[in-house]
């Protein structure tokens, strides 16, 4: 049992499963820094998962799937942005409504386009392939965990690093952090608050779109109803746990992905499958509890 916990296959699965959550969480981190509470992320992931499948199906090309996924992510952000930033609606209400409509919307589209219910499988849907990195072969253990992962997994790693640099080393990141910190001061500094709120939303859309793409095009090449299964929510909580810091949010994602990987590995054991499947959600709550333990004293007012 313990061997299973830290076996190469579990850890490798963790790395694989962390990709979609991490991409979405980095997107959410930019929203978090700009003080936009976007619970609708779940709908971004689901919608772009569908469109990525469709794009891949149309062009028989995984890359076009990614393009479709990203565009649909941006479109979702546009909806959210128009309602929240321009129509002054409550972001939580909008997020919930978007999440609910996404399920119906994607299922409807699936029916319209593929004429099936439940799930779509088609040989024309192409996934991204795995990438072999020769120099990782030389590193024992770690190498075999990191090597031969899907291209999107490496993309996710790259995004984490770039996001961290952009957040802290560029004027863009500085301004995103400023918008979340004090809007009035931002205005007096002559920076448009609206513009940077939109910018953060677009970043969220792009990355959540990529995250959605991971779900169908990371090897399984199929789309199922309600495929996101809370990945977007996990990403939002990861960004909250990391307080909008891309690297810290990524570590939170790794923990969630580990729980996910375990639930895959544990299915062979005598533990009831429902409890195993519930583990990632329970662990998310536990991690939120633990990270808040340290800051208890501050909030005694």
């Amino acid at each position, binding site marked *: 049992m313990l061997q299973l916990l830290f076996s190469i296959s579990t850890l490798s699965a963790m790395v694989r499963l962390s990709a979609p959550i991490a991409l979405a969480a980095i997107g959410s981190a930019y929203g978090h820094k700009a003080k936009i509470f976007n619970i609708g992320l779940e709908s971004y992931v689901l919608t772009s998962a569908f469109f990525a499948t469709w794009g891949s199906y149309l062009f028989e090309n995984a890359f076009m799937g990614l393009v479709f996924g990203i565009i649909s992510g941006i479109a979702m952000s546009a909806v959210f942005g128009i309602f929240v930033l321009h129509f002054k609606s409550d972001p939580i209400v909008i997020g919930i409504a978007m999440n609910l409509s996404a399920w119906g919307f994607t299922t409807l589209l699936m029916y319209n386009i593929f004429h099936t219910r439940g799930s779509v499988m088609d040989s024309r849907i192409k996934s991204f392939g795995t990438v072999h990195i020769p120099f990782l072969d030389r590193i024992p253990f770690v190498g075999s965990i990191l090597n031969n992962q899907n291209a999107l997994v490496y993309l996710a790693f790259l995004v984490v690093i770039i996001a961290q640099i952009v957040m802290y080393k560029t004027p863009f990141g*500085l301004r995103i952090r*400023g918008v979340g*910190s*004090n809007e009035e*001061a931002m205005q*007096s500094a002559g920076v448009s608050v609206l513009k940077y709120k939109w910018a953060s939303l677009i970043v969220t859309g792009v990355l959540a779109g990529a995250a959605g793409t991971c779900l169908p095009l990371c090897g399984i090449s199929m789309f199922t109803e309600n495929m996101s299964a809370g990945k977007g929510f996990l990403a939002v909580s990861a960004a909250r746990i990391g307080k909008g810091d891309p690297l810290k949010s990524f570590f939170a994602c790794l923990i969630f992905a580990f729980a996910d990987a375990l639930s895959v590995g544990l299915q062979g054991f005598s533990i009831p499958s429902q409890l195993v499947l519930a583990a990632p959600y329970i662990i998310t709550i536990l991690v939120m509890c633990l990270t808040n333990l340290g800051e208890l*004293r501050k909030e*005694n*007012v």
Partner: protein
Amino acid sequence: MEDIILEARHICKYFGALTANDDVSLSVRQGTVHSIIGENGAGKSTLMNIISGIYKPNGGEILVKGKHVVFRNPNDATKCGIGMVHQEFMLFQELTVLENLMMGFETKKLGGFLNKKQAAKDIQEIAEKYGFSIPLDKKVSELPVSLLQQVEIVKVLYKGAEIIILDEPTSVLTPQGIEGLFQAIRYLTKQGKTVILITHKLKEVMEISDYITVLKNGVVTGNLTPDETDEHKLANLMVGRQVLFNTQKHEKKIAEPILEIDNLTAFGSDGTEKVKHVSFSVRKGEILGIAGVAGSGQGELIEAIFGLRNPESGTITYKGENITTTSPRRKREKKIGYVPQDRISTGCNVHANLIENCIMGYHVAHKFKTPWLLGKEEASLFTRSVVENYQVKVQDIHNKIGDLSGGNIQKTIVGREFSQNNDLLIIEDPTRGIDVGAIEFIWQKIIDIAQEGVSVLLVSHELGEVMELSDRILVMYNGEIAANLENTPELDEKTIGLYMLGGKT
């Protein structure tokens, strides 16, 4: 040297039905200190927000160095050399001082990355030139108020300001801090910079200004120099009648202590110790004033006393009973009232009507006839009495409190707390940002209620207010009581100021 650098002609600005500026004209000469005075709501800040490009005027024009300019946003004003230091500092708490200064004005290096090194060098140079020293790598949230003001001034200088607008800069400073600020202002003007000072404190105006413009109800009522005028004349121009802040005080008997604080320690919201082993007592019928620089722990002390914050150690005794950890609910039942500093976020619910606002606390301390049902009639009766006795200008008590002016909201809150037969009133900054008439009214009410034997614990960041009203003054510095003084006519601001800075122990 004294060329006209900035001119505003016939500026008009309306907010809905409200006229904030009506045909206001102003010319400012280079290298001078030009004060704009007027009471709250006279349109000073509006005018400055127009000049610095935050608001767009409904009419009129602005000339900088003789050239017409139209500001679409604050950036345009910055490019014309106009920089404003707002009363509420425009700083980012979570970011470092350096990041604050760079915001919107970033120095970049190859590849579009931030060039923090270059920016830091440039800023240090400017700071040294004008005699400021600020820590660039610290987070803003860690700095004291006086330093934040310097950060703000350096910020506008860094952005190349020729004209520096200071909005009520002295309200957060001690007398000594004000002295320091004035030195800096004089130094700046000597270097050719122009300073526009917005204030309502006449003494300071007379001391520092070269030119004075007086605003009243959005209209210019005077353009003068300090030599031609004195404080009384200015006050007359500002208010339109003689203001005599001579509240009526009578002899009264001050009896035994009603509230005793012993060795109280409390933590702030950032987890640091803000109140350190504080002990004092309030006697029956006494007005005890607490003075101190903003952020010296007064807020935390008051919250701890009222039960909004858990004290770390120490005891609070009220009428001989230990109430250290009692909830605000129980404290209200024991006849303790509280007028909080922030009337919008704590003192009222802007979404609710006057009745709902007035019965808050009353419903705890006095209960309605039945314990379960809300007595609508009783509630509106109480609200009416508050509105009448405290001259709240409102058409209907079913109106939302958020639609009233600041002064009227404050009168409602004061009325609510004062009308509940409380034995102890905790009052925090009761007159911040309200008009002169309301200030006079509230001050008189405080004096009157103490006359009736109610004890008052008054915290104010306006030293003048504390000195005007209190029987006894405590000075807080860095979470401790630095002084406990009887308020005699001999007591002067300078002495208290020294305590406020921790200079004297």
